[in-house]
């Protein structure tokens, strides 16, 4: 365990940076969960709440960034402290993006709330969002605990989200081809799935930053990339 700073106010500032990230992370998790819940239930009121809540996450981002800039100016941080402040800025920006992606799911609820959802498909969506959320939770724990093992597990786990996304992509295209009346709903759901996949990517970024924060080095393995949808086509005769 690291010893404390001689200047206690510096120690307090670093601790407050951590606690703000924890709060911001908690808000982000809740927002994504509520957005997805609103999607499943077609709950417009709850979707609207999510859209409003995203502003709180944006405020956190500004606040943390401002504190980080002030700390750089006042403390001229070195080594671990420097890494913590740089990583705080980066994690905050990933969390803010995750918030935006959650908000985007909520916005789509407003367009498709009255349509009936294909049960099988929503099942796949649900497991994707559960996985994305548990990854997000784990990476925030890894940050709070400075746990590189946990961060690496999250980092490796992103491939699984990508795999679900690949199969959802295929499934959604098939629905659209079966009946053009599905296209509206399925396009929105496809974007929701894509948003969850992107949330996974931002979570992976955070895992990389936790690794850098603790060890001062980047993860040496090649990043697992499982999203194949950019090369995917479905023929009518399939």
């Amino acid at each position, binding site marked *: 365990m690291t010893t404390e700073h001689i200047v206690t106010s*510096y120690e307090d500032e670093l601790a407050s940076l951590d606690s703000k990230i924890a709060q911001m992370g908690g808000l982000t998790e809740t927002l994504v969960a509520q957005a997805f819940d609103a999607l499943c239930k077609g709950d417009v009121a709850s979707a609207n709440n999510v859209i409003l809540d995203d502003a709180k996450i944006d405020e956190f981002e500004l606040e943390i960034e401002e504190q980080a800039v002030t700390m750089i100016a006042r403390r001229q941080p070195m080594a671990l402290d420097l890494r913590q402040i740089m990583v705080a800025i980066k994690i905050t920006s990933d969390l803010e993006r995750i918030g935006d992606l959650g908000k985007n799911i909520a916005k789509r609820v407003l367009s498709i709330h009255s349509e009936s959802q294909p049960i099988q498909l929503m099942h796949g969506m649900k497991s994707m969002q559960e996985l994305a959320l548990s990854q997000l939770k784990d990476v925030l724990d890894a940050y709070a605990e400075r746990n590189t093992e946990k961060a690496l597990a999250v980092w490796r786990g992103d491939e699984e989200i990508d795999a679900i996304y690949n199969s959802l992509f295929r499934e959604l295209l098939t629905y659209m081809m079966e009946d053009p009346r599905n296209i509206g709903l399925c396009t929105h759901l496809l974007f929701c799935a894509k948003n969850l996949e992107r949330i996974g990517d931002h979570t992976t970024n955070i895992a990389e930053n936790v690794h850098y924060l603790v060890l*001062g080095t980047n993860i040496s393995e090649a990043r697992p990339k499982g999203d194949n949808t950019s090369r995917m086509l479905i023929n009518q005769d399939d």
Partner: protein
Amino acid sequence: MVATHIVESEAPMLDKKLDVNDQDANNLAEAETTNVDPAKKSTKITSEDIDVYYGEKQALFGINLDILENSVTSLIGPSGCGKSTYLRCINRMNDVIDICRVSGTIKIDGNDIYDPALDVVELRARIGMVFQKPNPFPKSIYDNIAYGPRIHGLTESKDELDELVESSLVKAGLWKEVKDRLAGPGTGLSGGQQQRLCIARAIATKPEVILMDEPCSALDPIATATIEELIDELRQNYTIVIVTHSMQQAARVSQRTAFFHLGKVIEEGETTQIFTNPQNEKTQDYITGRFG
């Protein structure tokens, strides 16, 4: 329009819109070629198992440290850690302290500087030193610079000496400011100018190594920036070892850093590595202000 940095090497890092003919671009190219791999540089000074005693008290314990040619090495560490003691071993300044005893080997270009046959005065001409407080001689600016070359007999004629005084002042970045007042007293200059005068005086004996013991600690930030800019230029031709209490200064001016603690070298390595990701916990505690 933003004014340019006193320290030129900072400008290209901030300004990406570089013109190839631009002075900054040239500096950047230069910085890239000189910064790429310090490991490629040859070793100028080697120290093996240096122990230093002041009477009964041991101040340095088995120091092994290599100093690379044409680069700046900073020695950092809390007060009393032995960094100044080590610095003073390099030009045998500790010889003048009666109770001080040095053992181990220090070699410059492979030659043992503690060889009894070696002329210490000649050694000190090869190794310039700049101190914490600017200490110009109570003489004219001209005589401050000419003093060393005169006692070492480095010049043959008055013209040659004039030239050496001018070139030393130019290298120390002081020429333009003092060329019209060379006969004026060195002590009449500002603190930063006095320190550059001392650097010019050190350069005048054509040294290979320049030792600096907290050269900026008595100066304001602008004078400090000027000296740091100078250090960056000087390393093209000299090997520089600097003791500093300012971690930021060590990070700014040096390519390699050695961290001293309780008379030992705890960690030595590339400056960027030491300040972003030190390998030793003591180093980290010290540079982040957690010591104690």
